[in-house]
């Protein structure tokens, strides 16, 4: 293995004296991608993170780099998603060069399986409406019939009526992505401070002072990207950030030879052979410890109806993790008006949007203002008076 190892920072690393150009609160995929992008432009960047107790959607997600379905009701989100998918090859190539970690990006198209005529009808209507929205991104999509799906995925089950397909969907390995970003921190001298949660925040003379268990961190720019912590942290920089946990469960099957080259939205094979089955959505508060059999049973049933050969493949793990969902499900990016220089970045698609966060959002934050076309992502959308 030619991957070099860099010793990890001491567990009790403290914020350095002086003033950072920027500090990010949150070391998951959103915070890490933003910090990585900030470091491309700024010299002194710090990341405050919790420890292993963090909810950490970054370690429980499915790893799609996904475009189809996104943006119904907010076409700007569809455009943002598409731009991230297009920037992903650049991010993956940079990470490989800087860290030696191949995050296993594959963008060879993706499928959304349809198991009944009703599902086909509803899906066509949905995709047509989605892509017909004014200002929506444009990409090719097709409704594939059984035979066409079978050409992409040998062995589909008899109930598969078809699938929607786009050439722009893909997958990555989310754990390798998180690891690559953190290795980049060490290589590029980003101060990553684990087990160092942010306490009180105040701003004086254009500098943020963030209290931590190991002293005060000072920074000119502050990014709150702490997932489910954003509600509380947002309030400390004058922003009302309505995010809630939405539980998703995932089933992992043992590693097999790679056979699924085109991923489904709910069934994929990892680069090293494991299979993931997922995409359940439950409102269950912060309960992420107990996967439930009814949901897992439903997930497994749909997977074997899609690909019956999976009946013979063992389940090796299952888990529940918490998505970071805003009130309307779309990302929130905004600069605080009462604390200029402080930003919030939150979404439930930390993998898909990683490239946009690193290569588009971070430069805006470094420059001190979000572009005008980011306005649809501000929390002002939640404050429209009901007619």
């Amino acid at each position: 293995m030619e991957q070099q190892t860099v010793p990890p920072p001491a567990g009790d690393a403290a914020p350095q004296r002086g003033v950072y150009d920027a500090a990010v609160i949150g070391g998951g995929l959103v915070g890490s991608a933003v910090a990585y992008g900030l470091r491309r432009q700024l010299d002194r960047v710090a990341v405050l993170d919790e420890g292993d107790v963090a909810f950490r959607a970054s370690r429980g997600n499915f790893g799609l780099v996904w475009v189809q379905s996104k943006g119904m009701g907010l076409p700007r989100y569809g455009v943002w998603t598409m731009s991230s998918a297009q920037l992903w090859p650049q991010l993956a190539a940079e990470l490989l060069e800087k860290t030696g970690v191949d995050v296993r990006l594959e963008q060879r198209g993706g499928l959304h399986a349809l198991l009944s005529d009703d599902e086909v009808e509803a899906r066509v209507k949905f995709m047509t409406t989605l892509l017909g929205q004014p200002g929506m991104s444009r990409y090719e999509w097709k409704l594939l019939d059984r035979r066409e799906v079978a050409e992409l995925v040998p062995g589909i089950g008899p109930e598969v009526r078809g699938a929607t397909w786009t050439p722009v969907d893909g997958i990555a390995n989310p754990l390798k992505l998180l690891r690559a970003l953190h290795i980049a921190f060490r290589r590029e001298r980003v101060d990553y401070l684990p087990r160092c949660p942010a306490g009180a925040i105040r701003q004086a003379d254009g500098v943020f002072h963030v209290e931590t268990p190991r002293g005060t961190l000072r920074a000119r720019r502050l990014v709150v990207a702490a997932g489910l912590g954003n509600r509380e942290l947002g309030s400390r920089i004058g922003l009302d950030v309505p995010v809630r946990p939405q539980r998703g469960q995932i089933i992992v099957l043992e590693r097999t030879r790679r056979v699924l080259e085109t991923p489904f939205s709910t069934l994929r094979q990892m680069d090293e052979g494991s299979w993931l089955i997922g995409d359940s959505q439950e409102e269950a508060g912060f309960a992420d410890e107990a996967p439930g059999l009814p949901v897992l049973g439903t997930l497994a049933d749909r997977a074997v109806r899609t690909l019956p050969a999976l009946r013979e493949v063992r389940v090796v793990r299952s888990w529940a993790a918490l998505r970071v969902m805003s009130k309307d499900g779309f990302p929130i990016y905004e600069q605080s008006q009462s604390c200029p220089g402080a930003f919030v970045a939150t979404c439930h698609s930390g993998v898909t949007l990683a490239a946009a966060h690193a290569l588009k959002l971070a430069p805006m934050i470094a420059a001190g203002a979000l572009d005008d076309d980011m306005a649809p992502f501000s929390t002002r959308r939640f404050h429209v008076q009901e007619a």
Partner: protein
Amino acid sequence: MFKRLDEAAGQAGRAPVRVTVDGGEVRCREGDSVAAALFASGHADCRDTVVNEVPRGPYCMMGVCYDCLVTIDGVPNRQGCMTLVREGMRIERQRGAREVRP
């Protein structure tokens, strides 16, 4: 599958059990685990790992390390240390990840 030594000593007198390892006959004893039978017949390694395809053999002998995975009677990824030999059992070495045949 740990046993007390006196029980194990009793096994010595029992009828031999014949299994095959990659087609070659191996004689073992009733009550042997597949992993024990592999060791006793000189098969120190029994599989190649899934990703890098380097050899591995039984290690913990108590069901936790999963290094003794073998194909038994056509079923892949069986734990050799947790499976008792049976007359006529077909044991095969695993090379890399198991297959799934759509």
